[in-house]
């Protein structure tokens, strides 16, 4: 056993990886023993109600057990990930306590436990029927200004904002170039069918 504690970010991330890949009970117990009492401290102060606090601890740690594979070390530390899970659960508890089940929910606001698409900006992902290989050929046809934008977004996986920053042009211009280029590409692909 190493002497590292789960408050060491690398160690916590390694424990989560073990839970994700091998459902390691030892790794999970170590995470639980560290995080659960601290969550309980937080939740008791938040709710002033022992039972609700315990429910929050249980729900948060259950998600850690079940969803460890959704933790992405490059997006933040393990403790931040667990914090965001607890934050979401608290938000939904408060909403349900107020009998506002139909109001905005935590998942709709912060999709902490949704599968992330790593390379593409979620909002601007290409239609599934536009395959990358096809794309490469078609891109040749685009005007240079549009091609550059498309390549940065869909090949290098930059967000539209990052492209705007990189090229020193307004975000609106990046958007209109993307829109025009995608329109053009769709037309080209459809005309090929």
């Amino acid at each position, binding site marked *: 056993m190493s002497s590292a504690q789960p408050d060491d970010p690398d160690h916590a991330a390694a424990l989560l990886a073990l*839970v994700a890949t091998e459902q390691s009970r030892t790794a999970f117990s170590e995470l639980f023993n560290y995080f659960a009492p601290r969550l*309980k401290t937080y939740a008791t102060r938040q709710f002033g109600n022992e039972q609700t606090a315990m429910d929050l601890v249980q729900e948060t740690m259950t998600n850690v057990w*079940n*969803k460890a594979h959704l933790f992405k070390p490059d997006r933040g530390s393990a*403790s931040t990930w667990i*914090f965001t899970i607890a934050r979401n659960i608290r938000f939904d508890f408060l909403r349900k306590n107020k009998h506002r089940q139909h*109001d905005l929910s935590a998942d709709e606001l912060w999709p902490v436990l949704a599968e992330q698409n790593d390379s593409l900006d979620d909002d601007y992902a290409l239609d599934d029927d536009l395959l990358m290989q096809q794309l490469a050929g078609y891109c040749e046809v685009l005007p240079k200004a549009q091609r550059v934008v498309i390549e940065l977004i869909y090949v290098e996986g930059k967000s539209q*904002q990052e492209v705007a920053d990189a090229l020193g042009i307004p975000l*609106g211009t990046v958007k209109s170039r993307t829109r025009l280029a995608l329109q053009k590409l769709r037309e080209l692909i459809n005309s090929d069918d």
Partner: protein
Amino acid sequence: MIKFHPSEEHLFHYVTGDLSPAMLMMVGTHVDMCSQCQEQVREMEQLLANKMFGQEEVPEEFALSDASFDGDEMLARIMAQAPDRHEAPRLQQAANELILEGKRFQLPGTLARNQHRIGAWHKVVGKMWRASVDVGGDDVLTFIYMDKNTRVPEHTHKGREATMVINGVFNDETAEYRDGDFVFLDSTVKHTPETRDEDCLTLAALDAPMHFTSGLSRLLNPFSSLFFK
């Protein structure tokens, strides 16, 4: 570049979830569009995580062995479940568009995930349209679409108004606002938003109806309740 951002306080309360649903949507949409605020949100999350989990010693009354908290029992209960390997919901990728007057607008993630909450579009007056976004809570959240060369009658707010640009440009007396720009006005500010040679799709949160102040538009005041009910 985005010039107008939510305050640090707004960002912080977005991170903790302690704003009205309408304001959470506003700030979340801005964060979707603004890499600078995304960075700040990440830092705040880390800060709060450190605060929550950083203590070396847990106070006695919260320790695992406390009579009221049988940690071992909970641990066993959780691990008794077979890990749930169901695919988590994928972030939806299609249908993130809003189509209005034949134009297509890409919706940032926060709005795209709540597309089912967007109501029908209504013409307000002239070339101005609105659709409310039903997120619950006491504030009102609404899209406003202004065609080019459109002006909103001069008005103040009894409460506060946050407006942000989803796509396009609008101006008021003091500045020009473009994609991602976020403005927060309180009841002391009069303003007259208008579009010039571009149209503009904005999202606004209000905690009280608008109050129109200029001559003719005072007659329109009943219209304010229609505008943001």
